[in-house]
């Protein structure tokens, strides 16, 4: 029986971190625990910190059990499941005072016993597993399940739920189900017999997860593309966006294959590079299909040339940028929001693009659909700026909903009949005074034929080097961006709106911001919060900025890119925008937001926002 350090009773509010070796199959054991807790009705978040590697490097997985359903990373570790000898030293250090460390006690580990303020729990996992199972690979995999069993006992996780999950995974493979169930039981029974179960940090049933799912943003976005009616996906593999196309393809194979003929109502093209991937999307969209490409920062850099063409020739296209840490190759398996400026003004010449900022997987689903509607309505590229945290981690979201009455907004596309009624078709004339012109598709009618080009053209679609003719088109494109502001999703306002201090943020910062707002409220600091969902910024953003005296811009990059974009594209006074930046590559926590706001307010004590 280990000597338990007195810890506060923290039911349904703690963090378990798993330190593993990449490629050892630990992911399934970790998600087993997370999902079991979720099924007990207790909100959880999962964050995966993995290396850019296939096998051998350290990898961590973090489960935050959060009765208040906070979506952000907690920024502390209460229980470390230290399964990687190589990282013991740092893993031990990371445990919060009063926390726990669980390790494989098959071999003596003097190094893990260095801290007096934590409880070290040894479970002879390798010994237990080796006595019951054969085969090196098998033993490695089952050792993970064994620690999941021990953890289930320690955390008071319902073993029947865990068993149920195993049955769902291995129901069709009785041998695997049998060994997994047995390994789970080994760990569970050992903990029950030898350790004080459950720990003060433990799980108790709640009812806060019904109507919710655990899903990652890339899966949700891929599903959104299916529901949007996308038929052509072109891509070049790049972390962390790859799983988006994997999801799209998987769903299409399930929903878009004619069972009778095997005919497929979709095409997924693995391109030779990102230049080709976006070219295929432009070609397919120009030809009337809903087409998209998922990528990340380095891919966006390569796509710039075609993005400019699509902007100027007014071809719809949808680009998912699952942002990762830059610059250059950066840290491919870490998260950031550092492509904001890159995407807003992608390509040479005067260009501005529509951006959408989903905050979680649920929004990835809906914004995927919106992106196609916007791209076709506005005949322009639309970027969905997700990030690795949203895209690859499992988030608790409300069930995704679908209205069968939805029909895609294909925008202004002339049919053969409509063309027949025209004297002559001109591609770039502003007939409706909304700066959006009519387009035609190849193959429909010779009357709709026009020559699409990235070279200078006039409103009639013909080549020009005439200054005035060129400017007519360019000025309409500027007006079209004003039209775009009316169509894009409105920002989300939290708070009464009358507070002097405000937070403006985007995307995956949302969880940390909301948690920070609760913390600040406990400190009697009231703030208003505006989450921007799209660029161009609409009137709502403009008026929110002008209504608040002190505004904190929270974002995950070094150079305050959102703040820059706000100062460039709104009338806001730069001096009243304070930046709170997180660019470590790890998902944001609420702490820097709380500290940042308290720090500035402490320097300006007269601010009436501090209501003591």
């Amino acid at each position, binding site marked *: 029986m280990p000597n338990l350090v007195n810890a506060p009773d923290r039911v349904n509010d703690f963090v378990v971190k798993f330190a593993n070796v990449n490629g050892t199959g630990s992911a399934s054991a970790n998600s087993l625990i997370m999902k079991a807790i979720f099924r007990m009705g207790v909100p959880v978040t999962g964050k995966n910190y993995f290396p850019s590697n296939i096998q051998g490097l350290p990898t961590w997985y973090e489960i935050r059990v959060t009765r208040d359903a906070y979506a952000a990373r907690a920024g502390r570790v209460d229980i470390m499941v230290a399964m990687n000898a190589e990282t013991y030293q740092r893993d031990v250090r990371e445990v919060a005072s009063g926390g726990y460390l669980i390790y494989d006690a098959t071999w003596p580990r003097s190094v893990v016993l260095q801290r007096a303020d934590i409880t070290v729990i040894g479970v002879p996992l390798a010994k237990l597993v080796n006595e019951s199972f054969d085969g090196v690979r098998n033993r490695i995999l089952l050792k993970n399940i064994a620690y999941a069993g021990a953890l289930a006992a320690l955390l008071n996780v319902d073993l029947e739920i865990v068993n149920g999950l195993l049955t769902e995974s291995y129901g069709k493979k009785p041998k695997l189900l049998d060994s997994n169930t047995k390994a789970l039981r080994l760990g569970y029974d050992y903990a029950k017999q030898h350790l004080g179960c459950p720990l003060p940090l433990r799980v108790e049933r709640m009812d806060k997860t019904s109507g919710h799912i655990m899903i990652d943003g890339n899966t949700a976005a891929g599903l959104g593309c299916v529901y949007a009616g996308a038929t052509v996906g072109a891509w070049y593999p790049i972390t962390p966006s790859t799983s988006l196309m994997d999801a799209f393809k998987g769903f299409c194979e399930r929903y878009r294959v004619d069972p009778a003929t095997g005919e497929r109502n979709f095409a997924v093209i693995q391109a030779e590079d990102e230049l080709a*991937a976006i070219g295929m999307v432009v070609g397919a969209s120009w030809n009337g299909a809903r087409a998209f490409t998922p990528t990340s920062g380095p891919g966006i850099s390569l796509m710039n040339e*075609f993005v400019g063409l699509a902007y100027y020739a007014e071809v719809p296209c949808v680009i998912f940028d699952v942002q990762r840490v830059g610059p250059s190759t950066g840290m491919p398996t870490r998260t950031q929001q550092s492509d904001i400026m890159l995407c807003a003004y992608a390509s040479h010449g005067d260009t501005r693009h529509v951006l959408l900022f989903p905050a979680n997987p649920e929004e990835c689903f809906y914004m995927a659909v919106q992106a196609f509607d916007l791209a076709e309505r506005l005949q322009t590229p639309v970027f969905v700026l997700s990030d690795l945290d949203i895209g690859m981690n499992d988030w608790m979201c409300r069930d995704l909903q679908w209205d069968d009455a939805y029909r895609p907004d294909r925008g202004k596309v002339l049919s053969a009949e409509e063309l027949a009624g025209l004297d002559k078709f001109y591609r770039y004339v502003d007939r409706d005074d909304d700066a959006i012109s009519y387009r035609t598709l190849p193959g429909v009618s010779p009357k709709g034929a026009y020559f699409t080009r990235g070279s200078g053209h006039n409103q009639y679609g013909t080549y020009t080097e005439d200054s005035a003719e060129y400017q007519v088109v360019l000025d309409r494109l500027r007006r079209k961006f004003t039209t775009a502001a009316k169509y894009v999703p409105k920002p989300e306002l939290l708070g009464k709106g009358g507070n002097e201090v405000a937070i403006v943020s985007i995307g995956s910062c949302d969880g940390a911001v909301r948690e920070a707002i609760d913390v600040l409220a406990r400190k009697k600091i009231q703030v208003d919060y505006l989450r921007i969902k799209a660029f161009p910024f609409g009137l709502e953003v403009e008026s929110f900025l002008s209504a608040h005296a002190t505004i904190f811009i929270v974002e995950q990059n070094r150079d305050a890119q959102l703040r820059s974009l706000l100062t460039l594209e709104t009338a806001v006074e730069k001096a009243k925008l304070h930046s709170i930046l997180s660019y470590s590559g790890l998902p944001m926590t609420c702490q820097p937001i709380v500290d940042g706001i308290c720090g500035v307010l402490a320097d300006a004590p007269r601010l009436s926002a501090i209501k003591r």
Partner: protein
Amino acid sequence: MSFINKPKVAHPALPTNALGLTRRQYEGSMSTLCAGCGHDSVTAAIIEACWGLDMRPEQLVKLSGIGCSSKTTSYFVSGAHGFNSVHGRMPSIASGANAANRELTYVGVSGDGDSLSIGLGQLVHAIRRNVNMLYVIENNGVYGLTKGQFSASADVGTKAKRGDVNHSPPIDPVLLALSLGATFVARGFSGDKAQLVPLIQAGMRHRGFAIIDVLSPCVTFNDHEGSTKSYVFTREHYHAAMEADFVPHAEPIAVDYPQGESIPVELHDGSRVVLRKLGASYDPTDAAAAYKFIEGKLTQNEYVTGLIHINEAANTEFHTLNKSSAMPLNRIPYEKLSPGRAALEKLMGRYR
């Protein structure tokens, strides 16, 4: 270039095709290329080919990159959509467009700079992907619009107008395509329209990627003594190994071909190319032999023209491998694309 606009009225006695259209109705805007440019002859051959195929103008999709050759897509079939994309990236536009609608006829026109330097990556991958399109390279060995730099197809020892000599070995599009398993590989000469027209027609009807490398001299920057891409040099060194006649599927083969000297190849739509052998032992269905033959001739500065290789039996066209629906993807009604609310509700169970 010419500054005279084309008259709109056609003479009533002009011959019409099965659609009742004259050749004039397959023309495009006025060429802005230099007078005597080989590319204009290729444009004329494409017009003739489309007219002869009785193609509805809107059935054609014209794609190009950047450069003199890429401009020419606006000089033919004005009733077809055209896409003058970015430098070297036409193959990806073509691949995407073709993925969206498999029913149209896609013709890409590119040059040696656009295809063999900046666009080499996209070209080879379009060949690998076996996109159903005709890809015409108007090959003149130089960059015209930027005033005469060597391109990647310039031969070793060839002289630029200003006297520079090229020392880097050329990339030959025909050998390149053969090495990649292309199923239709041809070479033509802009000065030989009679040979070029049936090649273009057969290439358009071939199911898969058809590439025609057309030697098309640049009168302004590469037509001087010492150039291996001049009219004079090309006329002396091009060597028609294989004449092709294109026979639309409705027509019987009218010409008598001597036994053993002709190879009829049926295309997937029922039309045929009849290959007339000019060399005794040449077999255009044998890619490896074709490669060896062409390579050998190139070392002797001989450009073999004609339909060099055809593999109509290959079942590797993009949509065939993708098992795409027969109905073009851009026309499938939304109701068939959305799994609907009930499916989503069911799917949610997977994520609990």
